[in-house]
């Protein structure tokens, strides 16, 4: 079974030495993200996120199905993360690595269970028809920070996506095609984002947005998910080494600043994209509906 090549002892020692001297390999501050870039596809709900050399593509797609019998008033929302050998030969199709399992678990907690998406709004006719929304996360290039990048990608894609409108007449529902009726945005309740803290030297040093080499050297990680209003959605800690509880409070403080910055950045890009698409004032109409 192919495995990710381990980092050499020289690199490990050097990175640790550098951290003690307050230096990161790429010259970043300890609490700085790599340059974030976000672009949208021609279709709604396709987002390409670049975080340094890491690149993630998220795509939202929708289908109409029957709601789950125990949740008659809810639509279905799924996040699918499957690694492919594109990002690393160590990723095998159909054999999830630990990183893959952790990523899907964190996204599940951060986005789905924190009710970022109002699934009730995906219901068409209670108990009979609903929208099934799925978010596919494709890891294209892997240089660490997959969780943070994937979360940004999914949240931005959800905000960018437009679902087709439906016409309900009694028991009969007609899904209107894009040509017939302008599609409508999803109802998003809040925007959780993840910030991963990697810690070293028994928690004395922590890094925000570690790259792959830094991830390979770390003792453990703490992933904080919160929205820009300062509400914490989940905190997860992996790796055996211990962390001071107060350090986690500090992480949350740092994360809030980062989340605010990133939310503003995503919003800026969404606005730019909306402006680009705004031909004939259709978007103006839509945003009026949105504000209601």
């Amino acid at each position: 079974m192919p495995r990710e090549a381990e980092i050499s002892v020289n690199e490990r020692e050097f990175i640790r030495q550098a951290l003690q001297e307050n230096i990161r390999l790429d010259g970043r501050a300890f609490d700085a993200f790599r340059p974030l870039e976000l672009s949208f596809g021609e279709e709604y709900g396709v987002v390409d996120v670049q975080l340094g050399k890491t690149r993630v593509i998220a795509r939202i797609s929708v289908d109409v199905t029957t709601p789950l019998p125990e949740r008659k008033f809810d639509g279905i929302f799924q996040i699918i993360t499957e690694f492919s050998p594109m990002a690393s030969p160590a990723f095998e199709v159909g054999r999830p690595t630990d990183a893959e399992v952790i990523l899907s678990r964190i996204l599940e907690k951060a986005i789905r269970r924190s009710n970022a998406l109002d699934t009730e709004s995906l219901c068409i006719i209670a108990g009979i028809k609903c929208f099934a929304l799925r978010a596919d996360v494709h890891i294209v290039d892997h240089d660490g920070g997959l969780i943070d990048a994937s979360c940004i990608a999914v949240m931005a894609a959800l905000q960018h996506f437009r679902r087709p409108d439906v016409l309900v007449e009694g028991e009969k529902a007609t899904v209107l095609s894009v040509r017939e009726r302008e599609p409508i945005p999803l109802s998003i309740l809040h925007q959780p984002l993840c910030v991963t803290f990697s810690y070293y030297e028994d928690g004395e040093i922590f890094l925000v947005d570690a790259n792959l080499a830094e991830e390979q050297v770390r003792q453990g990680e703490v992933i904080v998910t919160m929205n820009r209003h300062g509400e914490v959605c989940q905190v997860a800690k992996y790796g055996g080494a211990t962390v001071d509880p107060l350090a986690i409070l500090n992480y949350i403080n740092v994360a809030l600043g980062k989340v605010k910055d990133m939310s503003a950045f995503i919003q800026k890009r969404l606005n730019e994209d909306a402006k680009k698409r705004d031909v004939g004032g259709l978007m103006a109409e839509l945003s009026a509906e949105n504000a209601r």
Partner: protein
Amino acid sequence: MAPEAHLSHLHRADGSATYTHNGYSVIGAVNGPIEVQRRDEMPEEATLEIHVRPAAGIGSPKERHLETLLHNTLRSIILTRSIPRTLVQITLQVRSLPEGGTVTDVNTSLALLPHLLQTALLTLLSASIPLSTTLTSVLVAIPASKSSKPIAPLLAPTADDLLRARPIRSTHVFAFSGNRKLLLNESHGVFTYEEWDEACEMAEEVCCKDKGGVGLNEGVEVDGSQVNLDEWLRSVVKRKVEVEQRWRIAP
């Protein structure tokens, strides 16, 4: 519209390319030659592994079918004997499909096939995997004629072209090697031998016929002049070499 290509833009993979044409966009990556699993190892040849990943969802039999077609075609141009007991792993991720592409009556996997082939070749070039030749591929669609007069086949049609020309009676994918030999043909629908022959000739013209051929309807253009796909490929490689060699002329 001329196809667009970006080469070697991913950091992890040994070779990578993004190919965008007619609303389709495919990202490809190659890892190789790398270690092959014992059960797949061949003493005198390289093993080829192809993953086609759809834009949404995980692979289905449709993707497995495409993988088989790609596998057989690429196997014939990769010099597998020069890198024995290794693995060449190609991953093709469909990034976007043309909007409204599913409403036409064209087999969706057939329409995707030329884009996958083109992307795969570009990634192999980017990874410097030894090849015996290059390949170019194109889709030809033959609309059903409402009168007795036959309609001209559509070459590399866009989703809009197909929508306007509905109903489509048959679709054909052709791939030609750099030395103008037919490498692959997949056809779908009802057609006569004459129709197939015409489609094949048209495809050959856009893929690799010498100058003076018709060229793509919309015209594949390089520096303003119409060229066939083979010459387009050459221009892509020329750009790659220029980027690699720019240190020689840098001040």
